[in-house]
């Protein structure tokens, strides 16, 4: 399997205290990873660093074999890394416009953009709520819109931060089903969570963080 992301000697400190210290992390194409660990273990921090949202000291970072500066990723690489917050932010517009956002940024023409966004919302089971104001949707619905919003861009890497936290049983079930569908031969899916159902999904590789270190 080809490595999509390779990181060597990643470290992050907060107030002089090390919060993450990872000698090596390799994320392979076609693999799904569950990043488990207690609250404060550094799961969200690691995902945010990989998404380029938070700085860290990194000795070596390679994306698809190309050595890059993690804090200065070129736009084409940055656009291959999709990140979803634990509580996704919904822009103050409809669910459809939210899903269209990344396509608009990429200059996709309007007709194609709308068609792709509608397809993504249908995939997430949100077709009927396409015109609903996204900020007034329930937590589970917002999470599904966020998954559609990132899936429509077809990134190489999905980084999902606690996607099932604070969802009811039905919402959790639907979100887990969608996440299972994100995995593909050329994709990497990394899910930070302590949801046992997610951890036990077939074929998922478990990475456990303990006090900022990856445990075997």
């Amino acid at each position, binding site marked *: 399997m080809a490595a999509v992301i390779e990181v060597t000697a990643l470290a992050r400190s907060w107030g002089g205290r090390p919060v993450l210290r990872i000698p090596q992390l390799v994320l392979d194409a076609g693999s799904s990873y569950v990043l488990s660990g207690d609250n404060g273990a550094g799961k969200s921090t690691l995902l945010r660093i990989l998404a380029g949202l938070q700085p860290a000291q990194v000795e070596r970072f390679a994306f698809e074999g190309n050595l890059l500066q993690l804090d200065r990723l070129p736009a084409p690489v*940055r656009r291959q890394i999709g990140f979803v917050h634990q509580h996704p932010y919904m*822009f103050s517009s409809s669910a459809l416009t939210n899903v269209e956002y990344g396509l608009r940024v990429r200059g996709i023409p309007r007709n194609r953009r709308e068609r792709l966004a509608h397809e993504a919302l249908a995939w997430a089971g949100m077709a009927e709520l396409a015109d609903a104001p996204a900020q007034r949707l329930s937590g589970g619905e917002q999470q599904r819109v966020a998954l559609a919003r*990132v899936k429509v*861009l077809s990134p190489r890497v999905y980084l999902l931060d606690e996607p099932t936290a604070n969802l009811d049983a039905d919402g959790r079930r639907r979100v887990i089903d969608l996440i299972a569908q994100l995995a593909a031969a050329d994709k990497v899916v990394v899910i930070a969570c302590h949801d046992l159902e997610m951890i036990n999904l077939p074929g998922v590789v478990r990475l456990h963080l303990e006090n900022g270190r990856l445990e075997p």
Partner: protein
Amino acid sequence: MDLLDTTREAFRLLFSGDPTLWGIVWVSIKVSVLALILAGPLAVAVGFVLAHVAFPGRRLLVILVQAFQSFPTVVVGLLLYLLLSRQGPLGALHLLFTQPAMILGQMVIAFPVLAAYTLTAVQGADPRAHETAASLGAGRPRAAMTTLWEVRFGVMAAVFMGFGRIISEIGCSLMVGGNIAGLTRNIPTAIALETSKGEFAQGVALGIVLIVLALAVNVTLAAVQGQGGMRRAWQP
């Protein structure tokens, strides 16, 4: 002329479409709106950067921007006068006692108000808005525009507050405009002049226009902010 007669005459001037009076109103609105349009983009950008980007000296700049909101307009006028007067460094531009000089002065006065209110609006923005835009592929300018759009009611409040500050200021307009009839005479300078001449009717009429403008700005602002703040249950 007693107060009743003065008010009656003021309303007559207003509703008869008195060209002198409405010419003064036009100068006021034109100068203030142009000052806002010209100062707005840079001031909003400065407000955003101060709220969003960490750099050395940022805190000092924030304090300065907030302090300059209450900088006396007559001192702004004095400084501009010194710059624009014939012996001043910008005297060759021959801008003193022209509308562009008034616009320049009002830009200087509006700038810190616009920047400070934008700063507050962006500081109140959900940090996930910018992160979400960036993680969906937006570059810095695009992500900044998205964040500003998300706090658009706060940015609109900045624009209204800036307008409120400059439409009624007199010190700077008087110093660099010179209160020339038909050219640089705006509502505040005309009110001051007419009153000093004992001609109260036009002063009262212009005062009414100024009050209506100020009220309209505040009512619009309240309506806009209400629209942004109200959360009604959405029904499919």
